[in-house]
């Protein structure tokens, strides 16, 4: 039995992305692993979607495919009106660069660069003039409350502060979609809440967010929760408004 989801995004907004019967199969010499198995998923502009499920259920693969870090084995993936399944790597890189910001569980900041430089990195590949880069980095640092740490290295920050830098970096290029892979996984409760509140605020300002999480309480911040098991979407429910 396949529970097909065909709900149009909330408030009837335009679709940001749409997946139809999308699969991702990993092959090695001896083993074939189906990580995603016939996924149907739509995300509308301005939504905040949480993906939940046990370890190995395919949440992260789904997030990677959404983020175009991985390509589907079959099926269709339309992003912002363009079919992206089957695009070349450099096309995908270009698409990704213009549309998507990432937040990782392990922050993934470059140890050798300062907070400011880490955030700026996201603009370096966008041909943004230096002055504008500076202004935009200042702006997002203010937004996530990390401006006073601009000259510090990641190793000098707490986990929560590091994740705020990562959020700032995801925001600075003004992406259409923010993908967060267990953004609170490496944080204690207080810092986790802090990051979730920040994401919620961003969503309220209009950002579209897809987040993978293990924590039901953090999933509650999202407008819609997608539950996965063994590569399939089991059930979705929308949080009561």
């Amino acid at each position: 039995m396949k529970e097909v989801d065909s709900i149009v995004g909330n408030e009837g907004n335009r679709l940001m992305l749409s997946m139809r019967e999308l699969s991702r199969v990993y092959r090695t010499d001896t083993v074939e692993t189906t990580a995603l198995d016939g996924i149907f998923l739509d995300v509308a502009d301005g939504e905040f979607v949480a993906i939940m499920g046990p370890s190995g259920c395919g949440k992260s693969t789904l997030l990677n495919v959404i983020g175009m870090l991985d390509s589907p084995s079959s099926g269709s993936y339309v992003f912002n009106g363009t079919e992206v399944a089957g695009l070349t790597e450099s096309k995908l890189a270009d698409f990704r660069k213009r549309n998507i910001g990432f937040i990782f569980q392990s922050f993934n900041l470059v140890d050798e660069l300062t907070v400011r430089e880490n955030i700026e990195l996201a603009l370096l590949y966008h041909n943004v003039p230096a002055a504008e880069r500076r202004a935009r980095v200042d702006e997002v640092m203010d937004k996530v409350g990390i401006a006073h740490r601009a000259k510090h290295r990641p190793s000098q920050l707490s986990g929560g502060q590091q994740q705020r830098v990562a959020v700032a970096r995801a925001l600075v290029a003004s992406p259409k979609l923010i993908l967060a892979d267990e953004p609170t996984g490496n944080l204690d409760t207080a810092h986790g809440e802090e990051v979730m509140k920040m994401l919620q605020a961003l969503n309220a300002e209009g950002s579209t967010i897809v987040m993978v999480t293990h924590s039901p309480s953090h999933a509650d911040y999202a407008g819609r929760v997608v539950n996965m098991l063994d590569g399939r979407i089991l059930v979705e429910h929308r949080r009561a408004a």
Partner: protein
Amino acid sequence: MWRNYVTVGIRALAKSRTYAFINIFGLAMGMTACLMILLYVRYELSYDRWIPGSDRIHQVQSWYKSQETGQEAQLQMTPYISGKSIRDSFPQIESEVYVSNNNPVFSRDGQATSTEDYLWVDGNFLDVVPLPMVRGDASALGQVNSAVLTQSEARRRFGTDDVIGQTMTLITRGVARDFRITGILQDLPRNSHFRINSLIRIDYPAYLGDTPDVLTCWGCQNGWVYVKLRPGADAGAIEAGLPAWEDRAIPDETAGEARFNAGDDQDWHIVNLEDVHLGRAQGGAMSPGNDRTTIITFAIVALLILGMAVVNFTNLATARASQRAREVALRKALGATRRQLVMQFVGESIIVAVVAMLIALALLELLVPPFASFLEADLQVAYLGADGIGLPVLGLVLVVGILGGLYPAFFLSRFEPASVLKANKSSSETPGTGRLRSALVVAQFAVSIGLIICTAIIYGQTVYARTVDPGFRRDHILQVDELSRYQLLDKGEMLAERMRRVPGVEAAGLTTIGVATDNQNNTGVMVPGRPDPVTIGIYQVDEGFLGAMGMELVAGRWFDAARPMDDMTLPYPPEPASQRALAARGGNIVINELAARRLGFEDPARAVGRTFRAGLIQNELGLVPVTVIGVVRDARFRSVRQPMDPIMFQNTNTGHSNIIVRFNGDPAQVRAGIERVWKGVTTEVPFEAEFSDGIMAELYEAEDARAQTFAAFAMLAIVVACLGLFGLAAFTAERRTKEIGIRKVLGARTRDIVRLLAWQFSKPIIVANLIAWPVAWWMMRDWLNNFDARIDLGPAPFVLAGLIALAIAIGTIATHAIRVARANPIHALRYE
């Protein structure tokens, strides 16, 4: 415990093959280079040490320094009389012998063949230099007219070495003389400055009865003098006493109004036999010597290569430390002490050194024979004994193993187990080690770049030496030797005339100076208004020389057979009457541009018509007025190492040493035709002739061999440096995987990443250039100054070396960079 260490060590190597290969192969190359150079250096230092009592045997040398031009020439040869005088003045000297090389003609059964390294000795040479003998004993040369041959020379001449008591006939100065063979020498090993096929005891004063001047001439360095000191005598004391002896022993001479002393321009030295080969004096040597600088340079290059291999080892070991961090932490948690860990890692590096040494020894066995024949050295790989490489091999393994392993060992054993295990960290690096690695890479590349520059400049100079315009047409010349034989004293003109008629011959001329001929003849020329004579080379030629040599006249005219004043032929043996007649009438000479300048004429044309007085005959008979009739362009007859000679050409019909034949036909046929002409005139003097190309190749043979050896070692150094860079690039690419992943997620393209990595590795190379350039410039300037004709030290080799190094480095890291840049970033970012 040790078994566990060995197992872990070998598995750690097997796990990362690239790393193991770079370490082992790099070290093996460094060790091979080191051992090869060690063999070579030892060989060069072993010269003449094998002669019993070599510490007591010395060579008397005469070092020349012109007071006029400051030009120096340190000769191993010395005048006959100086040996006798030194022997009589210093009681510490037990015995003395004079040796000269006359290359007599060997005559047997009516067949005349030329000889090589047949030395006249005027006493019992074996008393002074006790060479090992196969037959006979040290008294073999006790009598005049006795001779000894080396074993192989005896076999060559007689078919057997059982020739004691037989008679050997040698033709010298036109006279056939018989010598009794009284001993057979062991063939001399190559590591001797002596070149001996036969030693022949003659009564030297009687032999030179018709030219007795040579026996008392203080300016004629035409033989070698060896002295043996009494046991315990101090050579330093004799050396210190030589200046005072010069003042006492050397008489003033007068030539016309000019008074001079042969001691003014010469200093005498006694040099121990063991130091002759590498000594400062290399002029007039029996065999080509070597210089200490070359030996030291080779040794330094070998150590640099080894050092670079050790640096690779250290670099890669610390770079990869993170991969061993967990093992270290575990061992510590299980109770290992820091000392045990240090021992473990040093042990591992010794294992690597041992494996590398085994490969190095195999390479050595393969490479030493060609290397030895290339350098014409007698190199042998022996493991045991005083000359064996057993100890150095052991030492090298330990030094390399410990040196390469110590730093990584301390570095690795420092990890705190708690933080490594808990944090699941991979970047457990302290920032300092990255800087150390960069510094080491910079040093490696500075060395490589320096070596590339040196190689390029040495190569450029080698090519230049062969191709520099010598001032005459060097191609298509056949140079005929042996004309100075007594039998041919007045046959030169006839030979030249007949040779001109050989088909394919354009011109032929007689001379005493030709392509790389080694005789040097100088005389003093009095310039009006100057008290001291000017030293100018004096060489006898005939009218055909200019055309045959392809030289250019820049002013005046060349000799003309029709003008009596152009002809300055004197009879031989010398007669005082005709010498006086010449001094009274004078003669015409042609000089070169340099001589014109030395005589005071910047414009050669202004020298034409001037008359000077030159020492051309016995000094006591006065000076000869000579009038310059022409000036020729400067010609470089000798090696580019030697300064250009100022030359005065004198036209004579007799007394030449060479015939220069210019041809345009088939070389082999021309040579055969010339040989027929020669054989038609004499059967007593063997025909010896060489093409100029061959002479030039021989002239620069040793230099070319050294240049090529240097280039080979430079290449080796570069390969080792690149191996290191390759390993480091692999490691860096691996270590920066996460960062690269982040950059890719943020939109970096493959080429952005490649550019990023290329730049990271270009920076140290640019810094290395800045270090290498001035050092190489300074060293090469000194080296080039050894040459009289040399290339300019332009920026090209420096820029070229920098670019080559950069290209090699980028080429080396490109594969890694591209692979990493292409990898899917998810894997890099998922876990830390």
